[in-house]
C-alpha cells in the first residue's frame, strides 16, 4: 500500500489524534469541553478546528497544489490569532501532524519502507506551516486596521462636519 492510501484508510484515527493534540494546547477544563460538544454554534472553536483539519488533511493528500488550503488554515488561525497565543503557538498545530502520522503509522511505514513517500508528505506539511505564518500575519494586520477604522467610524460625522475629511474632487 502506498502512503496516501494508507493515510486515507486511517483518516479518522489520525484526525482524532491531531485534534487531541491541538485542543491540548488549551487548559484542561477547556480542552475537555472542546472535545465533547459537537454543536457548531455551541462550540465554535472546537468545531471549527475539527472541520478545518478535516479539510486540510484531504487537501494534503491531493497530488495537485490545492486552492482550498488557505481558507481551511485561515478558519483555524483566525481564531488562535486572538486567543493570546504567540505566533508560533498559533501556527504550530500544522506541524503536529508530522508527529501524529509518524506515531499512528509507525509499523506500516517501517514494514512497507515508505520513507520516501513520508518525506514528500512532510515537505507538503512544511509548506502548509509556512503558509500558516503568512495567514497569521494577515490576521494580526487586520486586527490593527480594524482598530484604526473604528476610531474613524465613531467620529465620522463630527470629522465630516468639521471639514476634516476631504475627497478628491472631479474636475
Amino acid at each position, binding site marked *: 500500500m502506498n502512503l496516501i492510501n494508507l493515510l486515507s484508510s486511517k483518516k479518522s484515527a489520525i484526525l482524532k489524534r491531531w485534534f487531541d493534540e491541538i485542543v491540548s494546547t488549551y487548559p484542561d477544563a477547556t480542552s475537555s469541553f472542546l472535545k465533547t460538544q459537537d454543536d457548531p454554534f*455551541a*462550540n465554535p472553536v472546537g468545531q471549527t478546528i475539527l472541520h478545518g483539519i478535516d479539510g486540510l488533511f484531504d487537501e494534503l493528500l491531493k497530488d495537485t497544489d490545492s486552492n482550498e488550503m488557505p481558507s481551511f488554515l485561515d478558519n483555524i488561525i483566525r481564531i488562535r490569532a*486572538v486567543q493570546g497565543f504567540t505566533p508560533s503557538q498559533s501556527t*504550530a498545530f500544522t506541524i503536529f501532524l508530522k508527529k501524529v502520522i509518524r506515531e499512528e503509522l509507525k509499523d506500516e511505514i517501517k514494514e512497507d519502507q515508505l520513507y520516501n513517500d513520508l518525506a514528500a508528505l512532510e515537505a507538503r506539511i512544511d509548506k502548509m506551516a509556512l503558509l500558516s505564518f503568512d495567514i497569521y500575519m494577515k490576521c494580526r494586520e487586520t486586527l490593527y486596521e480594524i482598530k484604526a477604522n473604528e476610531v474613524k467610524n465613531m467620529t465620522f460625522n463630527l470629522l465630516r462636519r468639521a471639514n476634516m475629511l476631504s475627497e478628491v474632487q472631479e474636475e
Partner: protein
Amino acid sequence: MANIKLPKPEELSKIDHKPPQKRWMDTPAEFKQGMYCYGAKGKNLSAVDFPNARDWSPDDKDWKLPENWKEIVLEGMKERLGKYRSFHIFMDICVRCGACADKCHFFLGGGDPKNMPVLRAELLRSIYRKYFTASGKMLGKVAGARELTEDVLKELWYYYYQCTECRRCSLFCPYGIDQAEITMIGRELLNLLGLNTDWISGPVANCYMKGNHLGLEPHAIKNNIDFMVDDIETITGIKIEPSFNRKGAEILFVTPSGDLFGDPGIYTCMGYLMLFHELGLDYTWSTYASEGGNFGFFTSMEMAKRLNSKIYAEAKRLGVKWILGGECGHMWRIINQYMDTWNGPADFLEEPVSPITGTRFENAKATKMVHIIEFVADLIKHGKLKFDPGRNDQFKVTFHDSCNTARGMGIFEEPRYIIKNVCNNFYEMPENTIRERTFCCGSGSGLNAGENMELRMRGGLPRANAVRYVHERHGVNLLANVCAIDRAALPALMDYWVPGVKVAGVHELLGNALIMKGEKERTTDLRGDALPGKEGNEDA
C-alpha cells in the same frame, strides 16, 4: 553554535498557555495585552465624586489604592449583602452543577476557564466565604474561601471587566443565578477604590456634565442633525424641520448619542427623522438629555440612577406628556428593570398613548417611556405606514437580538415584524444563537474600547460564527440590530470574522423603504449607495 535545545513544536505550543496545574485560586491572573482597557483618569472620576480619583494604569504594579482598601471592599460587600437579597442568595446557593459553564461567549471564544460564569462568580464568592461565612472563616481553602489580597483584587478587576453583563448564563442556571448582577456588584466594589476604566468613566463624566457620552455641546448636536436633514433632502427631496428643546411638545425623543455622530448610527437616526416627519409627530429633541445610553450602569447603581434622572428632569422641564426612546440596548434594561425603583414614579408624565393609532402602551405605565420598536410595530399593524421594500433589495438581512432588549425586556417579535415589512430578504441565524439565547456582541457593558480589541474579537466569536453561517448559506450581507453599542461594535467584529457583512439599525432599513408624501424618485439608499436598478444614477 551554542548548544541550544530547541523545544519540539508540540511543546512550543504549550509553553505559557497551559496554566500550571495548580488550583485556580492559587493562580494569579496574568494580564494580557488586548484583554483590558486603560485605567480611568482622575479628572473623570472626580467629576462625579467617585472615590480615590487619580490617574492610574492597570499595567502599573502599584494601583495607588487607599491604605484601608481591604476594609473598604469588605465593608462595601457587607452593605450590599444586606441591601440586595439577590446578591446574598447568589453568593450562597450555587451548587456548581456546571450548566452555565459553557454558555459564556468569552469562554467559548477565548477558552480561558476563568471566563466560565461559575468560576467568574467564584472569584467573588471565595471572598464572601472567607469573611462572611462560618465554614469559610474556619476551614479556608477547603471550604472554597480565600484571603482578599491585592492579587485577588486584580484578578477580580481583570475578569469583571471581561463580562458584558449579558445574562446569557443565567438563562441556563437552574437556580436563576444571574452573573450579570454579580458582575455589577463586583464592579461597584471596584469603583469604591477608583478602579474604573477610561472608556467607561470618560463617558460617565461627560454625560453628567454635558448630557451625552462624547460631551457634545448643544450646537454640535443641532449641527449634526441639520447635516442629516440635508442628506435626507438630497435623497428624498423632502426638507425636514426637527425641533430642539421645544417646550410643550407632546413627546420627548431620546436616543443614544452614537446615533448622532457615528457611522452607521447616523443612518438609523436619519430613519427616525424621516419617520417622525412622515407621521407629523409632535415631538422634540433635547440637547441636554441628549444621551439614551447610560455608562453609569457599568459603574454603580447610584451613578446609573443619577444619569437616568436627567432624562426625566428634562421631560419635566419641557412639559412633554411622555418619552419615546430610540434603538438602544442597556438604556432599555435600565428603564424596564430599574428606573421605576430609582426615580419613579414619573407621575408628572402621562401614560403613553400613540397619537397616531390611539394604542395605550400599558407596559410603559410606570416609566412613561416607550421603545421605538414597539411604537413602530404598532403603527405598521394599524396600516399607518407605506413601504417599498424593494429599496432594500441590495440587502440580505439577518437580525441580532441585543442581550438587553432580548433577555432584559423580551423584545423578540417587534423588530422582526418591522424588518419583514421593510425588507424582502430576511434570514434567521440558528435557533440556539437568537432570541433569549442570543449571543452577545462581545463589547457590551462598556467594553467596546479599542485597546481591548482581542477580548472583543474573542467574545464576539460565537455571534460572528452564526452570522457567518447565514452569510455562507444565504448570502446574508447585513446584520440588523436595535442597539447603539451593536452598531458601534459589530462592524469591527464583522470585518474580522465575516468580511462583507455590514451593520445597520432597523430604522435605517425603515428609512430606506418608507414612502414619504411628496418624495422624489429615490436613486440611492440612506448611505448614498445606488439602489438596485438605479446604478449610475446616484447623482441624478
